[in-house]
């Protein structure tokens, strides 16, 4: 029965990987809340994730906001529904595009860097060296990154939301000739707290996933430079896919009936 055996192998490997990842995530979370803490390392990671990702997230957000305004105008003008553009821009940005695009950009920037850094530490035995120096690698390497990802992505998404809405505003006012006051009023009138909150919940989840994937693949990388390269690729690809999957699930939780 070679076919059944092959299916069984794949299923077992998948279940094994899921289990390992879950244990890894739970261990990481456990060490996030148990002393000793490393405030300097957490602060360092927060700057790395939050501050240094601002340019790339800002650029992504402003062009997304601009293109949203432009695209919805070309569609809505046929139905004389131009006044809905402000609403479309603000809802798309806060609910979906802010968190997802910021998440994907940060996954490329931070997830890759984490996997490469921890992976190199693993293959050069620096992770083992931590253990021999009575330092738990989960506390020293992983918990600060998980916490920083969890906390900083929502901050980045707030910035992305604002910049994105502003991008839509610029195009609507200066290119499409809208009335600024009406545009701002339309933006505010249809924006509910839940739109922003759901976006920030997504952001926190994505931030955690990005750090988790970066740390997990880095921590388990083996076999020198090639292994680290593989870990980096896996971290970015798996983080991106998980972001899109979780995006759907969180949306269904908030807005599904």
């Amino acid at each position: 029965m070679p076919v059944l055996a092959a299916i069984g192998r794949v299923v077992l490997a998948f279940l094994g990987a899921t289990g390992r990842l879950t244990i890894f995530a739970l261990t990481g979370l456990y060490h996030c809340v148990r002393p000793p803490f490393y405030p300097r390392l957490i602060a360092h990671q927060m700057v790395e994730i939050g501050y240094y990702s601002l340019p790339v997230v800002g650029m992504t957000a402003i062009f997304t906001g601009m293109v949203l305004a432009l695209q919805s105008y070309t569609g809505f003008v046929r139905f004389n529904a131009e006044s809905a553009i402000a609403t479309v821009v603000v809802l798309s940005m806060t609910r979906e595009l802010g968190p997802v695009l910021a998440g994907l950009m940060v996954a490329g920037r931070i997830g890759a860097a984490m996997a490469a850094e921890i992976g190199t530490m693993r293959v050069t035995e620096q992770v083992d060296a931590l253990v021999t120096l009575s330092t738990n690698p989960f506390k020293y390497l992983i918990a600060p990154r998980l916490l920083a990802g969890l906390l900083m992505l929502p901050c980045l998404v707030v910035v992305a939301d604002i910049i994105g809405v502003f991008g839509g505003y610029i195009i609507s006012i200066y290119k499409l000739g809208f009335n600024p006051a009406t545009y701002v009023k339309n933006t505010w009138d249809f924006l509910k707290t839940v739109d922003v909150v759901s976006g920030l919940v997504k952001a926190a989840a994505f931030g955690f996933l990005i750090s988790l994937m970066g740390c997990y693949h880095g921590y388990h990388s083996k076999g020198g430079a090639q292994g680290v390269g593989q870990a980096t690729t896996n971290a970015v690809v798996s983080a991106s896919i998980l972001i899109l999957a979780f995006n759907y699930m969180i949306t269904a939780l908030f807005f599904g009936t």
Partner: protein
Amino acid sequence: MTDEYPKISIRNLHKSFGSKVVLNGLDLDIWPGESVVVIGGSGSGKSVLLKCILGLIEPEDGSIAIDGEDVIGMPPKERERVNRKFGMLFQGAALFDSLSVWENTAFGLIQAKGMASQAARPIALEKLAQVGLGPEVASLFPSELSGGMKKRVALARAIATEPEIVFFDEPTTGLDPIMGDVINDLIVKTVYDLGATALSITHDMASARKIANRVAMLYQGQIIWIGPVDEIDHSSNDYVDQFIHGRAEGPITMQVRA
């Protein structure tokens, strides 16, 4: 600690990776204050043995006792306490790239012993001086050091917390013979100064002769010969003879994969 217990006592240790059996019922006792060198070919499981003792790899079967305490299956907290007795010099030095030389040296003092970094710095400088590195090196980063200097910093880091047991993983690999001998001298001196127990693994016989009190030969997952270093030339063991004279012909057949 009394001399009743061996410092490290290993019984019937088994470890395999997939179908490859690496350790196959290994027994080894290391007594306080002695320096044991485990020799064996590449891939004979020397590193795996060290990692099992350190708790980095979980063996399938057997027991490892440190000062009479069985450490296998120990809760993590206890394990961390036992690990505080250890210092280790890694083969590739394994210095933290993001930290300067003195921060690397002081790492164990600051992280494990909770020392303030101002207090740890002079101790780190003193340890660096012991391995022949001046204060001008202290604020360099590992990437700016030569291989021999990295090994010295790693040695300083391994002894900074004044461990009771020091492990040396291929201490001379990748160094020229003279620098290798310098490192050997430093190992002998620092271990003697600390009064520590030392366990080294190497395939460099010059290094083994210099740092060992006793030599153990690891072959096919077991210690096939152990004895004082002066007896190694009259071991009347064909495997040991082949290894120490580095002959291609003999009872040991290297696995050469295509």
